């Protein structure tokens, strides 16, 4: 999927995260993660984000994450929602996300 516009998903509240997705002119995926638990879970969060982006075939775009200690399933859901909005996508092949 191609990121064609800016989009956000999530909140700044505890146990949630805010995901900001924007088109990038560099043709690469740029992921920036800020988290209150970056030292303990930074790698794990990045793995989850990368996995979602791989499954949605997002190869370029800027993804900025403000994490407030969200669980993996929440991270997945928020990243999916932000990416789908940013790609202007109405239909989704749920199978690819499993």
């Amino acid at each position, binding site marked *: 999927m191609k990121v064609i516009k*800016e*989009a*956000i998903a999530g*909140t*700044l*509240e*505890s146990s949630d995260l*805010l995901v*900001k997705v*924007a088109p990038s002119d560099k043709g690469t995926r*740029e992921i*920036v993660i*800020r988290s209150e638990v970056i030292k303990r879970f930074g790698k794990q969060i990045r793995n989850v984000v990368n996995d979602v982006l791989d499954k949605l075939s997002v190869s370029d775009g800027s993804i*900025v994450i*403000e994490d*407030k200690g969200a669980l993996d399933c929440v991270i997945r859901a928020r990243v999916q929602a932000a990416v789908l909005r940013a790609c202007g996508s109405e239909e989704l092949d749920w199978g690819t996300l499993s």
Partner: protein
Amino acid sequence: MNATGDFYTVQPKDAPAEMEEVRKLLAANDLELDDQIEVFAVCRRQGRLVACAGLDHYTIKCVAVAEDTRGESLSLRLGSEVVKLAAERGAFHLFLYSAPHNLPFFRGWGFYPLIEVPQRVVLMENSPVAIERYCDSLRAQRRPGRKIGGIVLNANPFTLGHRYLVERAARACDWLHVFVVKEDASLFSYADRFALVAAGVKGIDNLTLYPGSDYIISRATFPGYFLKEKTIIDHSWAAIDLLLFREYIAPALGITHRYVGTEPFDSVTNNYNADMKLWLEHAASAAPPITVVEVTRATIRGIPISATEVRRLLAQRDFGKTAALVPATTQQFLESKFPVAASNTQMKGQIA
């Protein structure tokens, strides 16, 4: 109603009574209501207004939470609400003004400090990397030389005075970087202004022309610039714009000198020129000082050329007189864009 309270939005122009409550909440937090705010996100709990955050285009201001409701998650919900509100209005890259002592609070909203005027105000943006990415794109345009100039033009529209300033600066420098103010808040659209500058500076070879950005004389960095006739300008706002230039833009491009025309007519721009010397040259800063060079305005028959005058003549469709003040490229544009045949009174209304 949930335990936190009800969150909703208020448009200042539609709700004078409610704005009185907002004003009181702000006053209790040593803040004044900013009349540029288009919409507020507010929280009401048991009938009482307990939190507010204002949005002026893509800048968040006037954020307050009643003292007795602090220490809960209310403020984070407020932050989420105002960010969502901005997104619904198409604004994603956001700025925020805060008192310096509240900086840690807004870090929790995902905002990062850009520039601080000590003891007064801090400008933040909602990305930890956006300014660096912008500076990276500028760094790719660096040119060698010992004297590197910078000019920021609104060019509303481009006149022979602008041409004179750019020529003088280009001649004095090894290379000149020229920025066009991006904000669409002037009589001429950004696209038109940019095209006229591009046409007007043709033939000057040691120059790079840049599209404007949110970091150079924008609603975020210098809101007062776009309110010229209306208000007295808060000097700290010009300081923010100038310190951004000094600490980020100039170092990225190696700019050593900033050129500006003297301003005989417009007091906002005149103040800006005075502030320029203060904040670019004299104020304490981690970045090296930038020399401000004020170039005396070009004159025609003793009268300084100004875009303000061109707009005044344009309102009267006096193309005979505008021709003396603008290059041929701008003149052609004016004559095609403002036909004399058009309803004169209607157009005058728009320009005034």
